[in-house]
């Protein structure tokens, strides 16, 4: 059985709870905390036509207002069945996901049987805990049928990576209570109110006693976002920027020595700032806050990354930028949209996309594929790693590769092209997996597949492909030849 929490951590020592805290804790354990048991099925990106292995897991959650249960997205991702149980009640309650935010690792569950909530006590959300203050962490660490509580102090408040999506970083509170598999989704409480959701530990041998919780600003943002009945992604400026500490760079860009401004290095096409910001623009202000040369801003008397100003916005919101371009000040407005690329994000609750033709398996490269398959082809590895950094996305929105070969006489000489990137089929440029499907759908005597850098094309004769079709599908147990929709 898999227990939730990623990355994995060291074991916690159980804390002897103080008498006063215990009183509040017992109430909470019985009336707010829930144990979440799941059966999940994770897609198989090595054999994408297969349904994937079935797995079980245990996490925690807690009741909040309006008969909802808050937990981590990673506790209920790819779930086929979700049951909720509580202390002192032998019944299992079937739950379903109402909203899920993979970018901030949060999910809301609802129950078919609403009477469950009658005896439950919804927890209230508090603000950010102060550094050095004490918090209690509730959950079901390393499995177990009964709840556990540990105590820690707030060590640090900072931006950290969220490992569930693998591509997001948001505000995180670091505490010194160990957070273990099974703690995930459990409430972190101070003075009877929630200050966070336990979600990940520190994976490494350098540091010890490091646990991370999702603080309430992130939770509240999630709850606000779904108020319209739909979860939108976080928004992003979709630029890269560079701090302007260097005096020569400041002078060359026509800036005074006032420690303000970061330089725009790159503006991603189709992102929020595309067509508004330009490389070498200097951002000196954001929504009225001065942007310091290290990319920070002062909000509410604390100094945080300017990203925090964007974090607080929602899809369609606007942000005002004070920019210096070619030495002249400009006021620009950016309408905020989610980050335009999902390539490097772990995806959940989607089915792998693929297409099989003549025993050749074509798949788009994405993080899920990369996690499941070893890429040894140097060109393909480079294309994935540098897809954004080297603007490769401008040529092709997707990198479609020959991911696997279901060996058959029709493809006996295709092995040279394994993991190569498809460039064109019968002269038609391939930019997405759909292009591959369209090209093979067009009647032709033979299909000439050109791969990037391969020199020679791979030729498949339509007759041979047709003759091999049933043989391959039956022989390899392929139920479905393609899945083009996630």
């Amino acid at each position, binding site marked *: 059985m898999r227990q939730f929490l990623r990355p994995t951590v060291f074991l916690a020592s159980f804390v002897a709870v103080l008498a006063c805290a215990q009183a509040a804790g017992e109430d909470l354990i019985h009336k707010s905390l829930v144990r979440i048991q799941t059966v999940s099925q994770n897609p198989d990106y090595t054999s994408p036509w297969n349904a994937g292995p079935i797995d079980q897991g245990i996490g925690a959650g807690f009741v909040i207002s309006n008969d909802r249960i808050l937990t981590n997205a990673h506790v209920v991702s790819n779930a086929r069945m979700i049951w909720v149980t509580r202390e002192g009640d032998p019944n299992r309650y079937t739950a379903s996901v109402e909203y899920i935010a993979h970018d901030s690792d949060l999910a809301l569950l609802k129950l078919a049987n609403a009477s469950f909530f009658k005896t439950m006590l919804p927890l209230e959300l508090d603000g950010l805990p102060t550094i050095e203050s004490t918090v209690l962490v509730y959950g079901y660490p390393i499995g177990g049928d009964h709840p556990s509580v540990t105590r820690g102090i707030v060590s640090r408040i900072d931006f950290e990576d969220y490992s569930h999506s693998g591509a997001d970083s948001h505000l995180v509170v670091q505490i010194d209570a160990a957070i273990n598999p099974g703690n995930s989704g459990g409430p972190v409480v101070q003075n009877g109110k929630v200050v966070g959701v336990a979600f990940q530990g520190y994976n490494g041998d350098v540091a010890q006693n490091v646990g991370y919780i999702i603080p309430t600003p992130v939770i509240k943002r999630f709850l606000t976002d779904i108020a319209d009945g739909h979860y939108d992604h976080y928004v992003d400026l979709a630029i*890269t920027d*560079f*701090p*302007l*500490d*260097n*005096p*020569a*760079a400041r*002078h*060359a*860009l026509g800036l005074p020595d006032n420690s303000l401004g970061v*330089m725009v*290095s*790159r503006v991603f096409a189709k992102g929020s700032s595309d067509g508004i910001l330009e*490389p*070498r623009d200097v951002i000196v202000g954001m929504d009225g806050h001065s942007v310091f040369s290290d990319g920070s801003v002062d909000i509410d008397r604390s100094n945080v990354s300017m990203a925090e100003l964007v974090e607080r916005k929602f899809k369609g919101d606007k942000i005002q930028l004070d920019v210096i371009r070619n030495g002249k000040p400009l006021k620009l407005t950016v309408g905020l949209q989610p980050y335009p690329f999902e390539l490097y994000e772990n995806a959940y609750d989607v089915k792998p996309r693929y297409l099989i033709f003549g025993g050749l398996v074509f798949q788009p490269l994405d993080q899920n594929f990369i996690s499941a398959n070893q890429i040894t082809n*140097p*060109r393909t*590895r*480079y294309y994935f*790693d*540098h897809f954004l*950094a*080297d603007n490769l996305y401008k040529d092709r929105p997707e990198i479609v590769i020959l991911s696997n070969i279901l060996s058959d006489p029709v493809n*006996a*000489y295709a*092995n*040279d*092209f394994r993991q190569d990137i498809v460039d064109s089929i019968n002269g038609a440029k391939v930019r997405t997996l759909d292009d591959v499907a369209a090209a093979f759908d067009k009647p032709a005597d*033979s299909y*000439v597949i050109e791969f990037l*850098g*391969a*020199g*020679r*094309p*791979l*030729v*498949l*004769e339509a007759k*041979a492909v047709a003759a091999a079709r049933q043989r391959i599908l039956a022989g390899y147990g392929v139920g479905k030849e393609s899945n083009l929709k996630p």
Partner: protein
Amino acid sequence: MMSLRIPFLAALVLALAPASMLRAEPAASALPSVASIVRVNSTNQAYNFVRPWTKRSPFDRRGIGVVIDGGRILVTAEVIANHNFVELERPANSEKVTATVEFVDYESNLAILKPSDPKFLDGTQPVSLAKDVKVGAKVNVAQLEPTGALALTPATITTISVNRYPVDSISLLTYRISAPLQYRDYSFTLPVFLGDRLAGLLMRYDSRSQSADLVPYAVITNFLDRVARKPYQGFPRAGLTFSPTRDPQFRRYLGLKAGQSGVYIASVLHGSPAEKAGLRKGDVLMQVDGEPLDQDGNYDDPTFGKIPFGHLISTASLPGGTLALHVLRDGKEVKLDLPLEPRDPASVISEPAIFDRAPRYYILGGLVFQELSQPYLREWGVNWKSDAPARLVYLDEFQDELPADQGKIVFLSQVLPADTTLGYDDVEGGIVKKVNGRPIHNLNDLAAAAEHPVNGFDEIDLESDPGVLYLDAQQVKASESRLRDSYGLPSLNNLDDPATQPAK
């Protein structure tokens, strides 16, 4: 696929051996003499490509050299690569003498040494080279006991092929032997004899499979002939990549008839002999020098058996001249003449190997610029292909696809923190596109462009983030001596051009 995409580069064997080698075949009982070999002890010191102004710790390489005519000693080039000091020792009496490297060719992995005192070779017996050595031949690998006695290990030639040589990027004729070699001192390079004649020099040994690769006599003979013709011309390369035509669907697509054979030309390098010959991507190369090619690009050699046609281009011919190619193009046979030319060193974008000279670099106000080379990438260790910066690895690996006017790839290799580079510490690996508005094709371009700051600033345009770096030109000049002193830099640049350096 990968091996077939490597531009085959190769070279070959002389039809006529020098007169001294045309002796009668040795009697079966003939054995090499200890008087034909000497110990070679070379103290080498490689350059550090990460800190190109420094050298690494010196180390010794000990091998066995073979005495050949003209008072010369033959060894593999690897023994003396980056040598500081070379010493020869007679096995019998331990007499020692210093030596100079008369000639080295890293492509064929061969070097010629000369003792500082010719009398050192008095009483030695120059060896002659074997010929017509075929698969199955019984040979002896020569090693030396500490006493100076000859230790011979019998071995059998198992395979003859054309493989990539260990030092540079060329593929040449290679003999593989099977031999259970014991570890002995002075084993870095070992001569292998057929009777008393030199069959080759051992260049790599795999103790698990007990197999070893030799630079065979055929390559050595050709090398010595090239050395005799001044100026030296390296082993010719065609400058193309090819794919086999085994796939029947591909053969029908190409219009190849049942009896027709050959290989598909997958790419032709800019400025290469193949391009000069008029060869094009998509041609089917059917014959080289009158030898028909099979679907994998092999031909039948009377001595070596079925080997890749690259051998005909690299080693089976004299320097200069041309080789006839028969090509199938649009269903018609076309005859082309391939000029036999070695690689032009100036045309190489990322050098596969650099020895005996310091890496080029240029430091501008603490920003260290270098030209991309494989030795630089290899500083990341055995897993350099996955550990070194991916963009640089990619450019090295696929440099043949870069535009003809690429020149070198100049990149920011590191930042020495200084007043001038404040805030630039984390910028690394960026490829330089322009400096002060001038396009950069090599470090000399960069040095020249740095003489022309714009409005008092040096502006360095990088391909990757942050896109641009600025330096205060006056501050750069003023900080030069401080930079040199604080980081112990002997010089702020090395722009020595290998093309203008005398060959050793």
